């Protein structure tokens, strides 16, 4: 750490303490986004399958869920969950209270549900554009509906959904900055603390903007690599 201390010696804002604060904010942001994406993705896959069901009693409730979550701001959803949970009868005495006392889990729930709604819509679009020939071929092989969904429709739908999903991941990363509003110290929260402490808006916010930019570029790079690999068979032969 000596080189770091030397580097920061004549700098009043970016010292070891504030950098540690940024670092803890960074880990919170990454954990929050990663866990919401995993939870949201696991919710979205069955929901998308239900959404394309021909039975309106199955597909309409999913449509409503997606409609509600895509039609309202994430901030409102977060407020409803964060402030709403404390009002559930007896929650403060139950064993869930230590979990909900912290802002992390309400944020995680709100973000996971939100990204689940958007991902369901992306997957629905991808499933709907499955080529008819593939489905006919699967039927000709005598595949059952479930098997066809698992072996034919979903694998190709995932690939087609990938570019749109990459966008959703980046939007989720950016949307996670509102976790700082409900007292969670994520990257933006760390910047707000440091702004409040030093009254230095440019340094505090530009530094996190740069970090977000780096994460965004890293994600774009990763998804592009994944796309080249997974969509290689759709490339024109050069």
């Amino acid at each position, binding site marked *: 750490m000596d080189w770091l201390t030397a580097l920061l010696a004549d700098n009043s804002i970016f010292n070891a303490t504030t950098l540690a604060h940024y670092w803890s904010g960074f880990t919170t942001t990454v954990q929050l986004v990663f866990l919401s994406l995993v939870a949201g993705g696991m919710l979205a896959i069955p929901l998308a399958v239900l959404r394309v069901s021909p039975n309106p009693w199955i597909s309409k409730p999913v449509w409503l869920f997606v*409609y*509600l979550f*895509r*039609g*309202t*701001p*994430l*901030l*409102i*959803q977060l*407020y*409803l969950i964060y*402030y*709403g949970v404390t*009002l559930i009868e007896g929650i403060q005495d139950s064993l869930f209270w230590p979990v909900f006392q912290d802002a992390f889990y309400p944020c995680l729930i709100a973000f996971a549900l939100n990204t689940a709604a958007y991902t369901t819509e992306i997957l629905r679009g991808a499933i709907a554009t499955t080529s008819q020939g593939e489905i006919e071929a699967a039927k000709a092989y005598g595949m059952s509906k479930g098997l066809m969904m698992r072996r034919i429709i979903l694998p190709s739908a995932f690939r087609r959904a990938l570019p749109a999903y990459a966008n959703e991941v980046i939007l989720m*990363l*950016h*949307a*996670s*900055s*509102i976790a*700082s*509003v409900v007292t969670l110290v994520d990257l*933006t929260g760390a*910047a*707000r603390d440091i*702004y409040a402490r030093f*009254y230095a*808006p*440019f340094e505090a*916010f*530009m530094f*996190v*903007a740069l970090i*977000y*930019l780096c994460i*965004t*570029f890293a994600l774009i790079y990763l998804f592009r690599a994944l796309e080249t690999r997974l969509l290689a068979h759709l490339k024109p032969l050069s």
Partner: protein
Amino acid sequence: MSPFCQSVPAALTNLCQYGPPIIDGALLTVEVAVLSLLLSLGLGLLGASAKLSANLALRSVATTYTTLIRGVPDLVLMMLIYFGGQMAMNSLSDWLYDTFAIEVFFNINEFIAGVVTIGFIFGAYMAETFRGAFLAVDGGQIEAGKAYGMTRWQIFVRIVFPQMVRHAIPGIGNNWLVLLKTTALVSIIGLSDMVRLASEAAKAVHEPFMFFIPVALAYLALTSLSEWGLNKLEHKYSAGVRREAN
């Protein structure tokens, strides 16, 4: 408490008391959204023209703008512009006072900061939309315009623009829907829009559902209404274009 609110059923007293200001807040939300939409459309057109221009400097400025803005969260940019802008304005007025002995004070209020930030952010998205729409116009048509001896401006107004709008409307519509929901963020920097008024009311009387659910429904109504309007608009501008059969 107003006499009228004492007369309504006890369960609704709080809503009666805090509700009406929230409706004013809803108007403010719409105002912020529409003004920032106009700003973003202007910036988007400028950005798209810069991106497509032959001038390297213009192109790189526009590319930097769209890349940087789309890589950073809205909230961070908003705070940077609101808190940072105020500080920059303060040093500007200090400097004016020191050098010219002019005493002026610039105040960045929440409304301007909100509109400027949202307009600035969505300008970057609009620039991408417009760029795509410009490129979607058939080059042969522009050549035909040139062959008729039209000036560049005439080509833009008579040939490119009417066709570009058709390609741009779905993208503009999407951006508008996202923009509308982004306006909720102005409550964080202190503007009394419907989200802020609702959260203040909810905290005052400890009834989050009573205030947040109506606000959520108001947003839902705004987005649904916009989607309906956008469909109409898309239909109008697609007149004379054959739909792909599917």
